């Protein structure tokens, strides 16, 4: 279970939170002006990368506030949390962080528990 640092309440167990998927996918201001393809991109298409990911969380069993977090989906490390009205930090900030658990290749999902 992760520990998540709610920007309003502080560190709490993951079980108090819900994940809201990719962050910074704003609802289009004028949906009627979009063609089907553009609109369906907003409704259906979300990123699911291995590595650094900006995602949304909500403190469901706490303050019920939404906020954003940057998580490395490979190491499950939450690198930063920030409020909705705050600018997302630049990804370059996390260049020096661990890419994968214990340094195995950052592509694929094989069994890398043994160091060659």
């Amino acid at each position, binding site marked *: 279970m992760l520990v998540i640092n709610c920007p309003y309440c502080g560190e709490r167990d993951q079980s108090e939170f819900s994940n809201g998927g990719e962050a910074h996918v704003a609802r289009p201001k004028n949906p009627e002006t979009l063609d089907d393809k553009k609109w369906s991109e907003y409704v259906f298409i979300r990123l699911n990368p291995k590595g650094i990911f900006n995602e949304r969380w909500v403190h469901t069993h706490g303050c019920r506030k*939404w906020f954003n977090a940057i998580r490395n989906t490979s190491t499950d490390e939450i690198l930063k949390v920030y409020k909705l009205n705050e600018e997302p930090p630049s990804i370059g900030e996390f260049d020096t962080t661990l890419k994968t658990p214990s340094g195995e290749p950052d592509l694929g999902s094989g069994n890398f528990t043994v160091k060659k």
Partner: protein
Amino acid sequence: MTALNNNKNSRVTDSNKVSFIFDGKKYFGFDGDTIASALLRNNIKIIGRSFKYHRPRGIYTCGIEEPNALVQILSEKDEPNTRATVKKIYSGIKILSQNRWPSLKNDFGYINNLLSPIFSAGFYYKTFMGPKGFWKNIYEPLIRRSAGLGKPPKEFRSKSIHHHHNVDIVIVGAGLNGLLAASKFIDTDYDVLILEQDNILGGSLNSSQKIKTIDNLDTHVWTKKTEDLLKKSKNIKILKNTLATSYNQINHIIALEDNSVGKPLASHKPELILHKIRTKHTILSNGHIERLISFRNNDLPGIMLAGSFEKYIFRYGVIPEAEPIIFTNNSSTFSLLKSLVDLGCKPKAYIDVRDESSIEKKTKTILKTNKIPFYFSSEIEGCDGNKKLETISIRNKEKQIEKISGTMLCISGGINPDVHLFTQSKGLIKWDEKYLTFKPETAFQNTITIGSANGSFNFKRIIEEINEKLSLFNINELKIDLEIDCPEDLNIMELWETNNEKKSFWSKSFIDIQNDVTTKDLHQAVSEGFDRIEHLKRFTTNSMGTDQGKISSINSLGIVSKILKKNISEVGTTIYRPPYAPLSFSAIAGRSTYEFYDPTRKTSIHSWHVKNRAIFEDVGQWKRPWYFKKNDKETMYEAVQRESKELRNAAGILDGSTLGKIEIKGKDALEFVNLIYTNAFTKMKPMTARYALMLGEDGMIKDDGIVCKINDQHFIVTTTTGGAAKVLSDMEEYAQTEWPHLNVYLNSITEQFSTFNISGPKSRAIMRKVFSDVDFSNDKFPFMSFKKVNYLDTEVRILRASFTGELGYEVYVTPKYGLELWEKFFRYGENLGLIPYGTETMHLLRAEKGYIVVGQDTDGTVTPLDLNLNWMIGKNKKDFIGKRSLSRSDTSRKGRKQLVGILAVDKSKIIEEGQHVVKSSSIPSKIKFPVKYLGHITSSYHSPTLNHYIAMAMVEGGNDLIGKKLYVTQNKSSENISVEIVKPVFLDPENKRLLS
């Protein structure tokens, strides 16, 4: 030969005799004995039959790694698969051996051993392919009876609790290294938690004499002294009988404490405590596990791991056999040899694979002075015996077979650091060519591994390693003298399997003793293409079961690497997953069982419902009256028909308190409601209400409810009972993330109001009696309007709305007066024919009117257009959630499923919910000619008012099919029912009753 007691220097003494029952017979052991040590004391060598071949099996190890000695504890609600090597006995414990019938000595299933040549790897996958139906009815029940472990318990062990800890440092394992590390933290500012699986501290200090003295103290004395110091230190807590089972993300450790070690289960105390620990640093000093060597019949009762044999001597004070034979490929067995000789016992033979020059001088000296037969450069070819070890065949250095007799064989195939927890934490391990094992290499979390858990098998370096690895904590250096009485370092020669002399179909050398996997199975799996270790594991069931191959998994990697001619590090290991050892579900469940699993929500009228024979339905967490039994004999069908009829004739009242209610307030409440719901609310007058739909961004119906407008800044909306929490969450999400500029406040008021739905032609008359000063006339109180009315010292909201198609009112009252007002309705209404009705009647009545139920008639793929609810869409609104999706190519295409009504041509026919709507009059018997599915029945009821079945269905292009004939399938017949497609309104299409 028989077992001897070691009363000289063991941790269990013969002071307190304890009686126990094994397979119906009474035996004696000592206080502190495990089942295994007590059985060994009584010279019982066979204690179970194996998983697949039903071969007799004995005690192989002395701890958590045990593959064989699993027993059922009859005195503890039949708890199965208990490790005899861990479970402590107490007076009166009743133990049963497993997987044998009729008895341990004569087991019928042993026939499997004779048939074993056909039970090779993948046997089940290949053999039971057909004919159809045989698997379920014949093969599976047969296999289930003969293969397997213990029988499931009859009663659920439910008493366990959870403890939470937040600490700075967790030390897993309080052996020599754990205690030394812990002693560094005495009286520091670090919050330390020590987890020890045994009921005493000391680990291997208790089970061997490898360390003679520590700081010139006897190890026993030193352990006691250190424990006292740790206990006195306020920052350190010790949990004994506690096994760390999982090492999760962010240093989250799950440990299971057995709260009833060595005593019967206490009825008033939790039996298990699950510790959930969050720590900043973890020190793993959880030691090592010895591994076996595969040779012919290496599973015979009487064969035991050498380290375990030694542990029985010192930890439990029982020498299972005074003259065992020792077989090894490494230097660690010196200690067993020395201990036996010191105790006056003389091993019958010492067999070492290594050549004479690499065997330690100390070992050779002892063998020589005690005249113990010594075979170097030799190996055991195999063993023989009837249900127990009798003869051992040695292949000596001249490659000749020599046979010697013996009843006990101690083997050691090397030692593995226990890397299970380390790899769970996502640490990387690396193959070590010197020690021939996987060692922790790179930690992923704040994990420190020390001692043999780190693969540090050099006793000289213990203190140095601890000081070095714990230097980050800036605490005092340890200065301790260890007097060692064994080879300082581990010397080992590779040996996974010895060659079989006789290549018979029946000869077996086991690699996984618990799952009856032989080395031959590994060869076969590789030759059949399962050469990836994860595939091989699943195909052969190697390293599975309750022990997860703790003593053999590395051996199988060794054997597979030889077959594949690869390095072991290329073969890799299977992934170690939590839990480390089996964890009972009751421990995980903790207090969350039965009524505590999920809260039950009851309305303020609940007691009245119970008194009036309500049968309840679970809707989410709520208990809702499903129907009311008039008398005990009345069936549900009869009750629902009666309730429906009486309501349409007079009046009925439904407890609708469970409906979700959300209050929306704020300067921009109107705009917010306009964006959330499909309907237009701008022109709506204050104190009126509207039936409203909520969509997802994909245009599909998510929820429905009634929106009451008090004014532009204040709305109260209702939701479905099950959707209440989700609707509020969704509203909050949009308010915070998409429209933060809107000034709105949302509040759940579901439990702040009890809600009654009164409906039926007599409802106005009843309302007039209950609220005598309110004008209920059609002009003053039209449909879909509401009023606030004073009632006692509170305010009641009355809304004229209906879900039954009859004249109806909804009353919202504080739960404080809920029951009082409900009873008042009956005082005034009973003689007018008022009856209580439940949700089933509500569903029937709404179906007669063609009103939908979200989640029954819709399924997340249905738009309002599919339901012909176009009138509910505020087309002039610029935007609302899901609006754009209603004109997507898919939602606007022809041939979508649309809501229609269904009536059987023969009105006496019963139409079942969920049945398919098709074009053909019968279903062909062969699957080769599939019938096209046009749609399915979503709701179907027998209408007592119309006296026949009415149904609703979602049918492709339904709107164009009105008046056409189609067919509906039946559950128990291939003949279909001829039906007519009609508009989904069966009663009062002009809404005369509703608006009366």
